[in-house]
């Protein structure tokens, strides 16, 4: 885990090569995170992966979270590891819901990190975030014809109430 000064150094270096890419950093509970502009996400990931001093070549996890009611709503997280120095860094791209029924879009990083294949499909399946450039962006865990994006905060949990005879008899 790069410590707080190390994180600021990384941010400074990215600023030199890709100005405006990193919008903010956060070092919370000893976990370093870079908040990144979605349009320059691939550039930042490539920089972190290929720059000789950095070498964050292992994508450990790609997942998303819905920060409703905060705006922008969706955060896509990339957990990267540098295995030589054993350091983790998190890259976050925040997207908002376009609102008109179309899906939020982000560039796919499947060429950089082939492990993202299933994981981007899972994010698409649960949140409805489209990854441009993904070879086969279909639902992976839910049935192919399922309608709705379950993991969004405004999607109901589902299930049904349990009917008990006592309640039916007394409360109708």
């Amino acid at each position, binding site marked *: 885990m790069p410590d707080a000064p190390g994180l600021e150094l990384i941010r400074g270096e990215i600023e030199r090569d890709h100005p405006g890419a990193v919008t903010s950093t956060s070092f919370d*509970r000893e976990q370093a995170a870079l908040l990144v502009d979605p349009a320059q996400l691939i550039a930042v990931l490539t920089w972190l992966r290929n720059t000789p001093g950095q070498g964050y070549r292992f994508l450990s996890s790609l997942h998303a*979270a819905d*920060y409703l009611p905060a705006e922008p709503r969706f955060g896509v997280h990339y957990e990267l590891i540098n295995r030589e120095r054993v350091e983790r860094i*998190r890259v976050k791209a925040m997207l908002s819901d376009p609102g008109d029924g179309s899906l939020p879009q982000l560039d796919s990083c499947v060429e950089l990190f082939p*492990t993202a294949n*299933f*994981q981007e499909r899972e994010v698409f399946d649960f949140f409805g975030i489209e990854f441009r450039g993904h070879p086969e962006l279909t639902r992976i*865990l839910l049935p192919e014809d399922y309608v709705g994006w379950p993991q969004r905060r405004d999607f109901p949990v589902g299930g049904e109430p349990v009917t008990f005879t006592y309640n039916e008899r007394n409360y109708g």
Partner: protein
Amino acid sequence: MAEHEVREAIAFEDAAALTTADLTGELSEDRTTELMTVNIGPHHPATHGVLRLVVDLEGEVVRDLKPVIGYVHTGIEKSCEDKSYWKVIPFVERMDYVSYFFQMQAYCGAVEQLVGLEIPPRAKYLRTLFLELNRIHSHLVWLGTTALDLGAISMLWYCFRERDRILDLFEMAAGQRMHTRYFQVGGVIEDIPLGFEQKCRSFAEDMPVRVGQYEALLDRNEVFLQRTKGVGIVDRERLLDLGVTGPLLRAAGEPWDLRKATPYLVYPELDFKIPVGTVGDNYDRYRVRVAEMVESAKIVAQCLDALPEGPFIAEDRKYVLPPRSELSTSMESLIHHFKLVTEGFRVEAGEVYNAIESPRGELGCYVLADGSSKPARVHFRDASFVNLQSFADMAADSYIADMICSLGMLDPILGGVDR
């Protein structure tokens, strides 16, 4: 496809001189290289759980493979958002249903990081002990079922004999054989009873002997060697690109284990080795896991020796239930108990990703807290889910039987894959 032409009746004496080509017409180029798509599963005796494989076959050789998953998708992550933090623990246990302690550890570790809670040393040792027992358990289930798939049927009985001993230990400590909800935020839910240490120690002593017996059955068995040696090789770089971790990566020669790389709990103080393979074929995967069982037995013995006295759960009553004996004497304890049981503890906004080494690889838990008493998002980075992406590489250009062998050695648990 050539049309069927009606052939005239052929005299019997001439039949012997005919070849297949005569009888069926010309064999066009397409006929010889035609790919047949076959569906395997989701109900199949050899897929470890409800995994569906859509396989493109050329004869008996697998050319392409696509896993279709989601048949045991339970919406656990969504259910977790609806429950208070400690009620989430039984849910996350049931994801990867063979290594349940690991999910509990990943989640409890994440929440403890979010909250800033220190767990007492006895709890750390107990957690490590149970994690390693669960690692042995998971590898035993793997060995039994995979050997069954390969035809070494009696291995199932031997492995499950040991597994029942481990489950007896779990039952002694926690009351349940599987899904024990033993780990809580702050430590473990109960101390180990009298007699546990003795039984556990005798188990840890027996385990290397038993592993020796398994090896005696399989290690030099000609059929087993022919089926596993040189089969399913994927090189290290490709595995790293695909995000594969755990015994699969270690069998390919990369010594990456989160217990040594980013130590947690009491792993820094324990003395154990990490088995690493050389070639990366199925035989290496088998050897790595079997050696890991022996190492875990060593860790169990060390934990028992070094187990310190003290509380088994943190003392901070804001997050941990007070012991029941205090409830009748202390008003504060009663209030804390009430608050914790009805609403649960609140966690300030923040997010944490906590990764541990499960028997299958890196198990990561991401918890997003939004200040209320329920998590806003719980996501598990499951090892089997990511490892499954390497299956197509393993099975390409090999026979169906080799594909089945690779699937066994891949050790997917569909509960973790589908969550």
